[in-house]
């Protein structure tokens, strides 16, 4: 396998260079785009054959989304030429892109939440000053598209009432309604359950059968392998290779993305669980609106064990994390740390949890884990600034805090190694390392970590995963919450699946299959047949 990969690597452009039977849908030549000092796209060349599914992979910040935004007229390229169906095109704005038959499904949906599906579909494509005729036409058109592509969605439903998967369908319908022949999808599966992702892929295949061209931007190599015909790899603003999917492998693509070989699977020894460190009993948590989000959840984690909580986001994981770490009052139930019940109620619950030995790497590092306008060293002591280590009384011992920050940067390989830099200026992966270093510094008994690698590039993912494993092997208990099922499966020893505020299933990570977990994530609990 690795032998053929490196052969491909030497001549990356050969696979898709000859003019395909149906011609090129998109040809980009020498596209450049800068945002201030950042050179987001450097001399990008890309050719996409008509009637194919073309994947574009790359780490966060590799320039994929920028390139597609240029193609969709959302940004203007500094230089370079774009040809659509063989004709040179000047795509000044989204309207021009739509006129050329280019539609885009953005990562964050461009839908008006309090509008109906129909209203969203016609927005910007109304036939006349009064919207009634357009709404009627859209209803008929949606009916047709539904049968043609199996894109069922209730035309009168309000966007905020339908599932994320349905919202994505609305985005696809929007593009098709506008006559899109070329459909760009930016990280389409990030918010979907495995089942919803499968449905999406089915739709994309149907689109290809009907002669449409699909460009799929993703950082998930599994998806690239599963559905694309060709794949282009971007790294640091450059297009490093375009290959036929059939002639490559995930390992090879990962290597192209990062520029060195990476281990896609976490290397770890079997867990050696000791005594129970964290015990959660009958926890009930309500959200700000008073809706019960966590419905009587109980579980325990032992020393030397990583327990992962899988689930589609919004099924109570956030509230569970916030409650265990003292950020949100629980309605009822107990949290027992190392044999002692934790009192988490009140505004200083989080401080008490920390003092008791429970560290927390929050889900949203930029909003909860860091103050991004503060410098690195200030963030390195955030939450621990009252500690004797960093000064006595009201005074802060800045020299000591800075020394600690420098130590973190060294042990966690944070780049750039500058303790005075604002944390907003670090990349996602390095921001996460800063938070992780701070939380692991105090030698906690239990580490609660949410979305440890969301928005983190592959190189840093590897490092962060290894740190978490190291902590486990040091005999700590780790609670991991992630919407990335792959991450949960490869990192956890035991997996709990959350759906609608409840733990609906438990599985050993070593034996659980994706299909089995996917069903549980969708709330389908296997009925035990009486035998």
């Amino acid at each position, binding site marked *: 396998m690795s032998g053929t990969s490196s052969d491909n690597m030497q001549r990356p452009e050969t696979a898709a260079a000859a003019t395909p039977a149906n011609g090129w849908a998109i040809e980009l030549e020498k596209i450049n785009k800068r*945002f201030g000092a950042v050179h987001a796209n450097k001399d990008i060349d890309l050719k996409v054959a008509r009637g194919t599914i073309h994947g574009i992979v790359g780490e966060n910040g590799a320039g994929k989304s920028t390139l597609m935004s240029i193609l969709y007229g*959302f*940004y203007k390229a500094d230089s370079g030429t774009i040809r659509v169906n063989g004709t040179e095109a000047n795509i000044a704005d*989204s309207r021009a892109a739509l006129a050329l038959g280019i539609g885009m499904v*953005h990562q964050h949906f*461009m*839908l*008006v939440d309090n509008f109906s599906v129909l209203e969203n579909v*016609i927005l910007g494509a109304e036939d006349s000053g*009064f919207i009634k005729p357009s709404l009627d036409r859209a209803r008929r058109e949606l009916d047709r598209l539904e049968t043609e592509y199996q894109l069922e969605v209730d035309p009168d439903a309000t966007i905020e009432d339908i599932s994320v998967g349905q919202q994505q369908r609305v985005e696809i319908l929007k593009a098709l309604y506008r006559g899109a022949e070329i459909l760009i999808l930016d990280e389409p599966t990030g918010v979907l359950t495995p089942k919803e992702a499968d449905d999406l892929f089915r739709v994309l295949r149907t689109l290809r059968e009907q002669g449409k061209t699909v460009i799929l931007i993703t950082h998930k190599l599994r998806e690239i392998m599963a559905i694309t015909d060709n794949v282009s790899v971007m790294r640091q603003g450059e297009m490093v290779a375009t290959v036929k999917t059939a002639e490559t492998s995930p390992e090879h693509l990962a290597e192209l993305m990062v520029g060195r070989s990476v281990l896609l699977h976490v290397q770890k020894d079997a867990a050696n669980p000791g005594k129970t460190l964290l015990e959660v009993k009958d926890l009930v948590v309500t959200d700000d609106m008073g809706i019960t989000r966590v419905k009587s959840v109980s579980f325990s984690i032992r020393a030397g064990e990583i327990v992962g909580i899988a689930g589609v986001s919004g099924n109570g994981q956030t509230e569970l994390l916030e409650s265990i770490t003292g950020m949100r009052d629980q309605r009822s139930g107990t949290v027992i740390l190392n044999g002692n019940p934790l009192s988490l109620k009140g505004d200083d619950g989080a401080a008490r949890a920390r003092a008791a030995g429970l560290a927390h790497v929050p889900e949203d590092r930029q909003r909860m884990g860091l103050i991004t306008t503060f410098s690195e060293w200030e963030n390195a002591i955030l939450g621990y600034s009252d500690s004797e280590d960093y000064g006595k009384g009201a005074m802060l011992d800045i020299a000591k805090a800075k020394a600690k920050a420098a130590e973190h940067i060294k042990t966690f390989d944070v780049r750039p190694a500058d303790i005075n830099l604002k944390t907003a200026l670090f990349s996602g992966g390095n921001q996460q390392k800063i938070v992780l270093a701070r939380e692991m510094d105090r030698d906690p008994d239990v580490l609660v970590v949410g979305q440890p690698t969301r928005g983190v590039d592959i190189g840093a993912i590897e490092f962060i995963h290894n740190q978490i494993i190291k902590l486990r092997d040091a005999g700590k208990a780790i609670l991991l919450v992630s919407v990335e099922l792959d991450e949960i499966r490869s990192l956890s020893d035991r997996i709990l699946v959350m759906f609608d505020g409840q733990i609906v299933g438990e599985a050993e990570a070593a034996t659980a299959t994706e299909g089995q977990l996917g069903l549980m994530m969708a709330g389908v609990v296997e009925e035990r047949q009486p035998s």
Partner: protein
Amino acid sequence: MDMGAILSILDATLRLSTPLLLACLAGLYSERAGVFDIGLEGKMLAAAFGAAAVAAVTGSAWLGLLAGIGVSVATAALQGAAAISLKGNQLIAGVAINMLAAGLCTFLGQQWFRQGGRTPALGPNGRFGTIDLPFANEVAGVPILGPIYSELISGHYILVYVAFLMVPITAYVLYRTRFGLRLRAVGENPKAVDTAGISVVALRYQAVIVTGVLCGLAGAYFSIAQGSGFGNNMTAGKGFIALAALIFAKWKPVPAMFTCLLFGFLDALQIRLQGARLFDVEIPVQAIQALPYVLTVILLAGFIGKAVGPKAGGVAYTKER
């Protein structure tokens, strides 16, 4: 209280809620498009001055009305430039408009007319007269319905009818037209509008201009219909009450009308109650006058629940990251 007294309070309610309603609907267009408008008061005041000044000089109420609208639209465009194109803070842009209008109207009034900032009193042609609807006199004798038609519905300034007509028109525009669809969309998710190939900036300017026109009508109502000439600070905070009504009505036209009627009713009641006695003690007139404002605070604080305005409101749209 007899029928006559009730009718007279309701009649005053219509008159007093008219400028509130116009200003409230004005704010609705702007805020539904995502531009918070705390400058309703300033635009009304400027329009009141412009209308009165031109009506005084030309002797024509209609020219005065046009001038009022012109001044208000110009002010709205200035506010729009600050809040939309220059991406300034929308609250500060509105506050600036209010301060500018309060100072400039009095200053110009004094410079031009030398009457302490007031404009000269208008003659009968300089201001709008009341309109008697057809058959008002003929049906006055019919029990119950007769007086309601002839005294309550008939006999108002034209702007009163315009204001209440604007309610169904606004509802129709908002929910049944392309402009309304895009207007609502741009206040909720401007990025969706942008990616659909529509200019966010142009759409917001259109909304702000409509706001200017309606504020112009409201301002003119103060100085050349209800009053006969401009007086210092004659809008007396009505722009802010209109804003409160807009929030209370959750940015919807028909509830906006009922809220404005409620505030107008409180105002009418206040006038009626002046000099009233409670347990043989005369209630201080200031306390009664404060009543509508106190009730505004109570309503907003206590009864509104959570008012969630247009999601993208208050923030200028920036395309690049």
